[in-house]
């Protein structure tokens, strides 16, 4: 039986990818940020998953305004790295897990969530930056990745409550897959994020840290927070944080198990225009 072993949460700021690709990680601006992920890189070497289920948002890359799915699961065998306007990042292509992805799609749709099935998709920094932060710069990514896109670009976006419930459905789907696989679910994006207009550059450390506190200890209360609170307090693109609730919903405490163990927590300002947040939660066995 497949099982969820841990959840990883991280920002996916494109400038972080650029700093890695251009060899700037030791510069004074970037050093404190990358130092915050050193423990994570050791942790994932000690706790390697067989598959990563990676929740992210496409940033006008695979989905133009022609079609905007609210939730889309990548079922392909391979996902090329996108050219977002300055050429593709020099990172390995992403290998999928079509069998598990198709199984999850079947199960989650039967649990009343409308997923779009995607069999061809270029993946952008939303997916590749988290992989780089956790795995560094390997010649190939060490395990298959199932990309799971959530629309947080065009409003209205799905509610926190729906995202949490979706995570619970994904957990049930994973647990009904009859291969013995350790699956990690990653929620990415977010933290204070205002990328547009005269208000650009808004950072709200109090809001971000209260979000982290509640995500760990009281995810149901956090899931009840309305979108407008994220927009007012964490910026128009701060709404990306709802994606973390999908990953959090997949943890065992929401299925009647013990609370997860906090393996790592990190917060830093700034990375380009935003704050950076990061958590690792392990299942208690």
């Amino acid at each position: 039986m497949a099982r969820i072993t841990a959840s990883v949460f991280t920002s996916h700021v494109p400038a972080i990818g650029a700093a890695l690709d251009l060899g700037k990680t030791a510069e004074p601006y970037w050093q404190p940020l990358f130092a915050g992920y050193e423990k994570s890189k050791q942790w994932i070497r000690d706790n390697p998953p067989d598959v990563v289920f990676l929740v992210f948002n496409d940033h006008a890359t695979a989905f133009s305004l022609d079609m905007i799915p609210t939730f889309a699961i990548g079922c392909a065998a391979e996902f090329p790295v996108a050219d977002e306007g300055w050429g593709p990042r020099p990172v390995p292509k992403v290998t999928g897990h079509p069998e598990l992805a198709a199984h999850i799609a079947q199960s989650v749709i039967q649990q009343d969530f409308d997923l779009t099935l995607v069999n061809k998709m270029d993946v952008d920094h939303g997916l590749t930056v988290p992989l780089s932060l956790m795995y560094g710069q390997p010649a190939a990514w060490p395990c298959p990745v199932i990309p799971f896109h959530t629309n947080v670009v065009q409003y209205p976006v799905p509610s926190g409550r729906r995202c949490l419930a979706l995570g619970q459905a994904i957990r049930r789907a994973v647990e009904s897959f009859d291969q013995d696989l350790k699956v990690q679910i990653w929620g990415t994006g977010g933290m204070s994020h205002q990328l547009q207009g005269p208000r650009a550059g808004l950072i709200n450390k109090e809001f971000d840290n209260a979000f982290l506190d509640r995500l760990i200890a009281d995810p149901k209360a956090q899931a009840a927070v309305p979108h407008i609170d994220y927009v007012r307090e964490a910026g128009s693109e701060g709404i990306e944080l709802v994606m973390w609730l999908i990953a959090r919903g997949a943890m065992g405490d929401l299925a009647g198990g013990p609370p997860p163990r906090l393996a790592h927590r990190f917060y830093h300002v700034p990375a380009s225009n935003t704050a950076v947040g990061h958590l690792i939660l392990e299942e208690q066995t």
Partner: protein
Amino acid sequence: MPLDKPYLDVPGTTIFDADQSRKGYWLNQFCMSLMKPENRERFKKDERAYLDEWAMTEEQKQAVLARDLNRCIQLGGNIYFLAKIGATDGKSFQQMAGSMTGMSEEEYRNMMIGGGRDPRWGRS
């Protein structure tokens, strides 16, 4: 019944909702086209001619030519789409975001290094 849009009074912010998306369809689709290197080259060679291939309004074309991102957003642009113009120009996301604030590039960068914009900014 009116739709629920509680975000219309957030200072210095335009939320990209279904109405904005409808207004900005061709502007944003033009931006998407810049993901192909050959289109970036064609745009750089003759911006006006390239823009004229798209069913954008004259106002939208002028806003793009002027790189006035605030205006582009008012006219239906979304920042993640507009970022492709900045990428084509060789600008970082920070340079693009900063250009909308009325601050110089250095002032904006220093504000971010200093912890970012105060969340109470613009509130009454």
